[in-house]
């Protein structure tokens, strides 16, 4: 069973926050693998007889992501990288990923995280299924294969559902799916020697890509503002607890 796992390298600043002095995003140049995408890899590896290809679209530095993925039972490690793709919005990103999947060919299942911690649009998974005209299921926390049918248990804040679908299909996972276990020593050794495939637009042959081809564009940005309040200080834990209880009963009877 051929599975593609789409993974994204995201800047750590997506999780670090805003510097209260400068009002700018804290950037330390570090990157991490989007947490939901790690869950997607975990789900892929949970299936028996899985031939897993990890695909990432990004700059050269995304090779770090592939090196991490290489420590797991992954057959194929692909970086899709081309200046022509820079500035892609979710529509253009999906176009490139679709072309990549078709170029590599033969996938029964495509797994991805439901959203990335930087952009957080959550659009690539469903857009991909629509562009490829194959079924989709969101927020998978577990998957089970039965012949050519996949049973997906989907769970999010709104509820849960179990869906049965013939392959091929696209499935997105959220943070409710199992975490990726740390790699084995053997895996780490393997990763150190791993080789990657790099695909560019020479292979994909897409026109009207990147920023220019993106239907949406960012007009401007601003950092989140914080509205200050004047606070009453309490220094005793017991009194603090009493205040909290008083506030609680105020809400109940208010």
């Amino acid at each position, binding site marked *: 069973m051929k599975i593609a796992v789409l993974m994204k390298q995201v800047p750590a600043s997506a999780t670090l*926050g805003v510097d209260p002095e400068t009002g700018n995003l804290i950037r330390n140049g570090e990157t991490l693998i989007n947490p939901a995408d790690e869950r997607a890899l975990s789900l892929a590896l949970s299936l028996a007889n899985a031939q897993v290809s990890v695909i990432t679209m990004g700059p050269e530095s995304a090779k770090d992501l592939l090196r991490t993925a290489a420590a797991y039972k992954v057959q194929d490690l692909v970086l899709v990288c081309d200046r022509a793709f820079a500035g892609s919005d979710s529509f253009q990103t999906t176009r490139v990923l679709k072309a990549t999947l078709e170029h590599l060919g033969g996938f029964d299942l495509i797994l991805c995280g439901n959203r990335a911690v930087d952009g957080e649009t959550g659009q690539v998974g*469903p857009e991909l299924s*629509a562009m490829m005209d194959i079924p989709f299921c969101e927020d998978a926390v577990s998957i089970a294969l039965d012949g050519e049918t996949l049973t997906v248990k989907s769970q999010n804040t709104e509820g849960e*559902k179990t869906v049965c679908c013939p392959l091929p299909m696209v499935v997105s996972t*959220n943070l409710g799916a199992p975490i990726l276990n740390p790699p084995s020593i053997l895996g780490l050794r393997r990763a150190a020697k791993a080789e990657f495939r790099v695909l560019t637009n020479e292979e994909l042959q897409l026109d009207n890509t990147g920023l220019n081809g993106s*239907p949406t564009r960012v007009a401007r940005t601003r950092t989140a503002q914080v509205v200050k309040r004047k*606070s009453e200080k309490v220094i005793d834990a017991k009194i603090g607890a009493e205040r909290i209880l008083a506030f609680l009963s105020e809400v109940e009877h*208010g």
Partner: protein
Amino acid sequence: MAELLVFCHFNAPQAQDVLALLSHARNLAKEADLTLGCVYMGSELPAEAIAELSSYGCEKLYFLKTDAAIYTSGAAAKACADVMKNLSAQIILFSATNEDRVFAAQLAAHLETGLTADCSELSIENGLLLQTRPAFGGNLFASILCPNHRPQMATVHPYIFPIGEKQDGMAEVVEYEVNVSDCAVLLSANANTQKSISDAKVVLCGGAGLDQEDFALLAKICDATGAHLGATRVAVNETLAPYRCQIGQTGAGLRADLYVGFGVSGAVQHVAGMKNAKRIVAVNTDKKAPIADICDVFIHADAKDVLSHLAASLSLAN
């Protein structure tokens, strides 16, 4: 006639968050000189729903009648796109529930247009829809345009706009029989009856300053008081609390009367999620923690001690 369309939820034409979105859309439509309409996909459209949508400004209601069971497997969006392609919508808006975010993305792909997710602000600028949304965990707000592709599509964070005033009028209903052939089969579905944290009146939130034991005690205190358990992103990542307790995710705003943070430092993206709580109380040993600037009461003490006192007062086993 150029239109601004607001989508209702699947099989649920009467929903407060859609009315809130519709209220704001009414203003946008006026400013952009567009007719305001609604789109509803489902098996039944009761008269009350038509009346209600009309009273918030809907002039035309496109009823895509279908007996489809699943909204997000892709078949429904494909069928809907076929209908949308024949209309001249300039703007299409959704209230961003999980389902509608997925459906909107599928629809946008079929219509080959741009989509902006989880908007916290929408306005008209030079005739275009200016779509503002949080990114980078709520630390950054980006304003986005879709200048050349139509329709301009956006999903909007639910309840970000207030429900407006009612008006007279009755929408014209245009019905389409839509056959959705879906290879996906729904085996079971359960809506979450647990109150969403966004609806909670009281949230007791744990942060990185708490350990497993503290969280367990906090959960007990929540059970005893009817408060909703909250957690910071860090705490959820360390599996100290379930994901549904996380505050500060993409504009998920609390509208609580009372928020108490135990061992919460107050990182900007967390604050973005709880800053609208009426009363904010923080318990932290670090009086320089960012949360100290935005709370109403700062309890400079160890969260463990405060939790212990709370438990004792509520006669809970520690």
